[in-house]
């Protein structure tokens, strides 16, 4: 399916040739057009982005957007959702952005099961600042801040999110388009906090195409509601070793989520204030 051009602005796209961000944008645009046909109008969606290569997607999408700060997609999205529970709010975040600077917000978003979707363009490198290690770079990664290699293991972010109480956990890969569309769609439709970690090729600083192509596999669609299966899946690959890499929706559950859309009441503010001022 060709991209819906009406969802694309005329901003000049400045991603590198071969960058995995193109695929993410393409998949998302397809999902938005599809959902549009199914009755979720694009006006009711807001895109929130961080700062990094990934975040440029806010400029490219002809949609409501809040191009925020490095690491801060989640609180912005949470504020939007709390203010207007009718909106679908989708965060596009980077791995530096979300797992380094913004990790605290991520843990708490999962905890409160806020009904927003987070899509992490996990290229496992700081792209826009020209190639430093991130929390998901493998042991030994040599970047501009660590020319002799890092002595740290990566964070297994999906495993952490499972522990934090996230109710939708998925992994995609920028070179598996049909799956990408499916999980993004499901994530947006999920009621509660949905996290999609996308293994995204960075053509300029960390091109793992061959490694991923060899190791990824798609898990069957069923069984994603079992916690212990989910744990097995998140533990299967630790972002470091060369185990097989499960792709798909690794976990999906129901849990009370905020905000709960309550009934709309009418409040007479000034009468309330007057009563306070008289009463005391």
């Amino acid at each position, binding site marked *: 399916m060709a991209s819906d051009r009406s969802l694309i602005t005329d901003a000049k796209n400045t991603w590198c040739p071969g960058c995995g961000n193109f695929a993410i944008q393409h998949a998302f645009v397809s999902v938005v057009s599809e959902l549009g046909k199914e009755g979720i109008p694009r*006006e009711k969606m807001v895109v929130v982005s961080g700062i990094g290569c990934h975040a440029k997607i806010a400029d490219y999408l002809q949609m409501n*957007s809040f191009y*925020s700060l490095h690491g801060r997609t989640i609180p912005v999205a949470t*504020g*939007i959702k709390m*203010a207007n529970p009718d909106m679908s709010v989708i965060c596009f975040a980077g791995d530096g952005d979300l797992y380094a600077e913004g990790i605290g*917000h991520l843990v708490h978003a999962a905890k409160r099961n806020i009904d927003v979707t987070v899509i992490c363009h996990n290229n496992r490198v700081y792209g826009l600042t020209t190639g430093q290690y991130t929390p998901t770079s493998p042991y030994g990664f040599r970047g501009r801040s660590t020319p002799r290699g890092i002595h740290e293991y990566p964070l297994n972010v999906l495993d952490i999110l499972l522990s934090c109480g996230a109710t939708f956990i998925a992994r995609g890969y920028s070179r598996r388009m049909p799956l990408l569309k499916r999980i993004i769609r499901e994530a947006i439709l999920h009621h509660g906090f949905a996290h999609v970690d996308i293994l995204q090729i960075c053509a300029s600083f960390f091109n793992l195409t061959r490694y991923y192509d060899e190791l990824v596999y798609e898990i069957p669609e069923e069984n994603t509601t079992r916690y212990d299966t989910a744990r097995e899946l998140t533990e299967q690959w630790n972002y470091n070793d060369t185990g097989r890499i499960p792709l798909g929706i690794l976990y999906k559950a129901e849990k009370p989520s905020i905000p709960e859309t309550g009934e709309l009441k009418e409040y007479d503010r000034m009468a309330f204030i007057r009563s306070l001022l*008289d009463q*005391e």
Partner: protein
Amino acid sequence: MTQYTVLIGGKAGDGILQAGKVIGSLFAGLGYHVYLSVDYPSLIRGGHNFCIIRIATKPVGAFNTTIDILLALDQQTITLHEKKLNPGGIIIYNSDTVTTDGEGIAIEPLLRRHNGRPIMGNTAMIGALCGVAGLPWSRISPVLASQFQKETELNLAIAQDSCLSVTPRLSVPADTTMRYPFFSGNEWIGLGLLAGGLDAYIAYPMTPSSGILHFFAQIAEETGILVYHPESEIAVILMAEGCAYAGKRAAVGTSGGGFCLMTEALSCAGQAEIPLVIVLAQRAGPSTGMPTYNAQTDLLFACYAGHGEFPRYLVAPATASEAYRFSAQALHIAWKYQIPSIILSDKTFSEGYYTADSIPDIISDIIPDSPQIPYSRPYERYAAGEWGISPLIHPPCTGEVVKVNSYTHDTKGISSEEPRDAIAGAAKRQMKSDALAKETDTREAVCTSGSPDSETALICWGSTRGVVNEVADALGLRIISPVVLFPFPKKTYLKAIHGVTRFILIEESATGQLQTLLLKEGFTITETILSSDGRPFPVESLLERVREIIHGQ
């Protein structure tokens, strides 16, 4: 002016503040102006807490070094405060545990008689106070009843018993039909925000701002205000910006350390033109400092916080009605100009309690109808507009997209590194700054009082106005106290200083920060009276220091 000062002291956990509040409300309900100052260290049980309650027939916002009635729940209160007692002053004390002279109440047996709980010892003390003050029980019982919303009967019975058991020593008049609303500075700020149309209040607890969070949490259900306390101050401010983007008027509150963490997002609000209100309640710093004590040392930080240049509106109310008016105004201005507003408070103001003599009519006086600016289609979030103000709409809006951006951007909100867009953005911000400066330089922006002909003016801002008022009255001096601090209300200030040759700045800081702002505008300060011990000036001490300066030269 008729006035009484009551001091009540005891340990943290004894309910001293609660008792002080009831006493204050009681007298406010009897038609007195009341000011309550609370002094407590940063701990939960033990230590020493005290409230000073100033009761007067004209507005008050400061306390004296001397007191008329001392309510002692423990011996330490006697040790620390007895010496402040005026000749003829009275001590009311818990005779079970305190030894001194005066009106002793055997609290334990009294409570036992009524089957009361230990914390109700306070009720007994309050009852005794009423008795000693010579207030007729018939007059006070309805006022007290409205104070004890839980276990009303029981509390009233205890108070009455105690009230009737003591000898009346004063005869405090209680014959007016006036009653003044009595709230903490934090609550007055909250009320102003509420009246100004607030939709959401988001905060992380931090003394002395937490009172606003607790206030809104209490009234959330009745008012439909969204109240949320998230994981950090960074989350707080960005959630508020998300709310604003979605069309809800949000405010946040914090103190210096939390404000630091908000500065990155403050700058974001400047670039992306997100309206926002921040209550910054100062306390003694730097850093953790003395969390429950006062300072006025974040003025310049508030003026210049955040990287890059962008307009902001900064106000420091000093009275109940100013807090009410300017908090509503801060919200209004933030949304009108799509900028951040900062309400600069401090420990003394935020946690002190004040009666308001007049309540401005927010809706008509302060918030004029601001008709929705019409926009042309397709909507452009940053379209050029009068005074640099773009039409503001919120998603969802059929057929339109609303794009906000922390990068330099074009009118549509798309990132740009083109010189022309950078220049246009800076010009837009400058136009807004200019219009804002013009609009906010009004009569109310600078409070003037005292003797209008005095050539010596006491210059102050924020909570110190309360004490400066009394000093100026005593010495026949003028007071000039800007409420709007940024953009500085130059014209009004200039008018206010007409005829003044001597400018004495009174500020609870070590450097005199207002002086820097004034110098920038071409105004001067001739002398400064500064303080950095965290305690508000008692009237007499400041009087002494002003006298020294005036007569010393």
